[in-house]
């Protein structure tokens, strides 16, 4: 393990975070919130100083990045970023306990949207902005951002990108990693701006539009009102629901659209399966909850919004789905695990992995019936090698083992029923936010013990970084010098 480059990159990330913290600081100055602006400024300074110590004293940019270093950089960068990002909440005393502030920040960066705040509306605007801004930063990934702005001389930095970008296989859009990162961010920024403009048309104030766009783009789910999106007009609900769906699609497809390869983009199996699942789930839930609504369009909108929000792992809500019949709740719980497409900003297992696992299962069943049959797993028109299918199967296994470990850990000393604990673990691990029962859309995670909050914070990091980076830093062999 090359400790120097790891330290250097983590320091770089903290310096960037310091710069990013200045933006909410500016916002709070505009709204003359002196208290929170000071807290944000102080945090920025701390981040900058620690960052400089890491880059100059402890680290060195010697460009020796291999797979191991890539994982370590990503894991440590995310953890230290969350620790520093929690400072403004803690220093300003708007979230008095550091564990709570850490949970909230991790929830922000991992685009989960699970909150411990009992009253969001009481927060100062500067900190609300920072809270939602963490979604936007975490959505596309900080290290991808670093790659977009700093020239990387070593081609091996693909290891970092691979560790941070979700999906079973990370491909580049263009030959160069820096151009790829830039393109991804350009697509991301343009889509966010379009959403802000559309919401402004719908009469939402600028501040709210920007924050909701951040929450949607990162598929996070932090809102600014206690009832999330429920009090906004149907038009705004439609805009948010559709944009959630869009941000849950693989960004590579947008690039294909950009370079006018429409046919290639529309040929994506994952896209159609993703849209298919959304359509089927929406239909079933609509008929399941139809009788509680006055008009059919209300029922369609509400169920589509909830399906889109849960499937893309955003976590906005327009209805308290806790009160829905158990069929609808079970569908939503299933969608939590499926998640969005690979290469999007969303979390969960990812549709592409589900497809690959299903195809692997069918092939193996066929092989059991016809032991001499030869079959291969094809996905997106390409034959997958054993390495990839194995990787996906292992990912599945680890995913569920870890899920039950998390569930077990938060059940210790927990006052909640199994539905709450199960959905809380699922909602955090899959980066959704609200769960069912006592952590449903109208309530929050405040009542969990400090220990459970730390466990859930790590669950969120595991989910966002797709398990391995975080898991590896807990293994001793990973840190051995040789």
């Amino acid at each position, binding site marked *: 393990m090359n400790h120097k480059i790891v330290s250097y990159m983590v320091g770089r990330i903290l310096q960037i975070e310091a710069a990013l913290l200045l933006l909410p600081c500016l916002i709070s100055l505009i709204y003359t919130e002196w208290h929170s602006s000071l807290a944000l400024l102080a945090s920025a300074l701390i981040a900058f100083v620690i960052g400089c110590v890491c880059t100059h004293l402890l680290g060195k940019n010697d460009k020796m990045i291999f797979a191991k270093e890539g994982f370590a950089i990503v894991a440590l960068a995310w953890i230290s970023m969350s620790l520093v990002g929690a400072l403004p909440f803690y220093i300003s005393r708007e979230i008095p306990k550091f564990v709570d502030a850490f949970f909230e920040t991790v929830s922000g960066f991992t685009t989960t949207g699970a909150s411990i705040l009992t009253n969001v509306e009481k927060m100062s605007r500067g900190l609300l902005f920072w809270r939602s801004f963490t979604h936007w930063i975490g959505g596309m990934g900080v290290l991808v951002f670093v790659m977009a702005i700093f020239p990387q001389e070593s*081609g091996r*930095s693909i290891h970092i990108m691979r560790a941070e970008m979700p999906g079973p296989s990370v491909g*580049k859009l263009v*030959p*160069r990693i820096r*151009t790829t990162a830039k393109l991804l961010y350009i697509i991301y920024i343009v889509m966010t701006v379009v959403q802000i403009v559309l919401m402004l048309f719908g009469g939402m104030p600028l501040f709210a539009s920007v924050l909701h766009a951040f929450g949607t783009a990162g598929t996070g789910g932090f809102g600014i009102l206690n009832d999330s999106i429920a009090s906004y007009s149907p038009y705004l609900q439609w805009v948010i629901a559709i944009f959630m769906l869009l941000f849950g699609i693989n960004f590579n497809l947008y690039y294909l659209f950009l370079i006018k390869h429409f046919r290639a983009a529309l040929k994506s199996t994952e896209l159609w399966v993703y849209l298919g699942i959304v359509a089927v789930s929406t239909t079933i839930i609509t008929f399941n909850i139809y009788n509680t609504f006055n008009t059919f369009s209300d029922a369609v909108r509400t169920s589509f919004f909830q399906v889109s929000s849960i499937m893309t792992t955003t976590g906005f809500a327009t209805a308290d789905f806790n009160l829905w019949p158990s069929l609808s709740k079970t569908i939503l719980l299933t969608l939590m695990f499926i998640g969005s497409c690979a290469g999007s900003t969303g979390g969960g297992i990812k549709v592409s992995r589900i497809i690959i696992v299903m195809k692997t299962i069918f092939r193996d069943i066929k092989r059991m019936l016809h032991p001499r049959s030869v079959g291969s797993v094809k996905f997106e028109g390409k034959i997958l090698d054993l390495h990839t299918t194995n990787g996906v199967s292992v990912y599945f296994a680890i995913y569920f083992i870890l899920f039950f470990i998390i569930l077990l850990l938060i059940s210790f000393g927990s006052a909640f029923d199994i539905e709450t604990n199960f959905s809380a673990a699922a909602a955090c691990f899959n980066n959704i936010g609200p769960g069912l029962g006592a952590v449903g859309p109208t309530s929050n995670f405040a009542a969990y013990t400090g220990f459970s909050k730390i466990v859930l914070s790590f669950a969120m990091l595991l989910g966002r970084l797709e398990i391995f980076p975080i898991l590896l830093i807990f293994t001793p062999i990973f840190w051995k010098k040789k």
Partner: protein
Amino acid sequence: MKIIISGCGKIGSTIISNLVEENHDIVAIDSNPAVVAELTNIYDIMGICGNGADSDILDEAGVSDADLFVSVAGSDELNMISCFLAKKLGAKHTVARISTPEYNDKSLAIMKQHLEISLTINPERLAAHDLFNVLKFPSAVKIESFSRRYLEIIEIKLKDDSLLDGVKLMDIRTKFNAKVLVCCIQRGDEVFIPNGTFVLKSGDKIGVAATHQELLKFFKALGRSQKMAKDVMLLGGGRISYYLADLLTDIGTSVKIIEIDEKVCETLSEGLTKATIIHGDGAQQELLIEEGLLTTDAFVSLTGMDEENILISIFAQSQNVPKVIAKVNRDELYAMAGKLGLDSLVSPKKIVSDLIISYARALQNSMGSSVETLYKLMDDKAEALEFNVIENPELVNIPLKDLKLKANILIGGIIRNRKTIIPGGNDIISAGDKVVVIAANHKLQDLSDILEK
């Protein structure tokens, strides 16, 4: 520039590693997923797994806006088809590796024209040419020639008792009475361009630029054997051996090829009537000695195994063969073989990659004074480039001593009207000349890049 490399074997990956340093957008195509994965892990390039002659794969690689398409897979036919397809799909220039001896000059010319291939390269033939040059001039480790051999740059290593030990560079011309220019020096791991006050030490590897005649004079004065090898033993009957034997027997050199495979021996003896073909295992020292290793002028080890080449060459060196050359393909072994005392090494993939780089630089710079030839010297740490000079007020008709050159750059030769000038401070460059520049730690695109800005 956007460059697509199809076929990422030894040659392909060397080309990629060199082009990456030149800041091109590179897409690599190979049918082996492991190779593609490895390359994309190491270099900042896009990798696509598939057949280079599949139009879908070429589309995916973005062939329609590629500036250069290079197909260097093992199969000549695949390379031809890939290049043809790439050209038809919009690639601006195509380069194919074609190395079967049966595709001779005539059929190659027809194919080049009709498949619209911009450049065909034959690594084995190029390697054979390089070896041929060195065998004609055995005192040198390596010879690079410019502009139809009006100027040559040779690399030599100063032995312990060398007459050059302790000599100041500015005194060389008077002391040895030869118009030569020491243009780059490798001492230890460092490579630099020296000035006149530099003092040579034994153990240095130096690059000397001069015309062929002057070099002969220089070596005579140095007292080093400069006799052309008249009797050459080649180990291994691959394509390089075939081409080399062909070249050597043409000028009357006696050639003996030792090859282990009987079938290959038969084919060789059909193609090379003047050479002696021996069927036997070259790793057997007895056989080598029986076939006259002790009396041969030069021994070239060209088997497919780097390790075998190195070890047998060391053996030949221990038997006091005047000139021993080993073919070494793997970079790690190349460096190690140098440390083991083998100073003459040949690596076909390096030759090809030099060629592709000079071609890419020339394409990138088709407007200015373009790169005509490029060679990497001193273990790739310095470059010698030949430029065609065009009218440029900053450069042309100014005495060289008044030009503000960047550090570590030297003008090694000017070729004007078929005459070679080894320049001094009062010489000038004029439009229409060919200029050879030696640069360490620079990547020159245009002749004007040599000026301090």
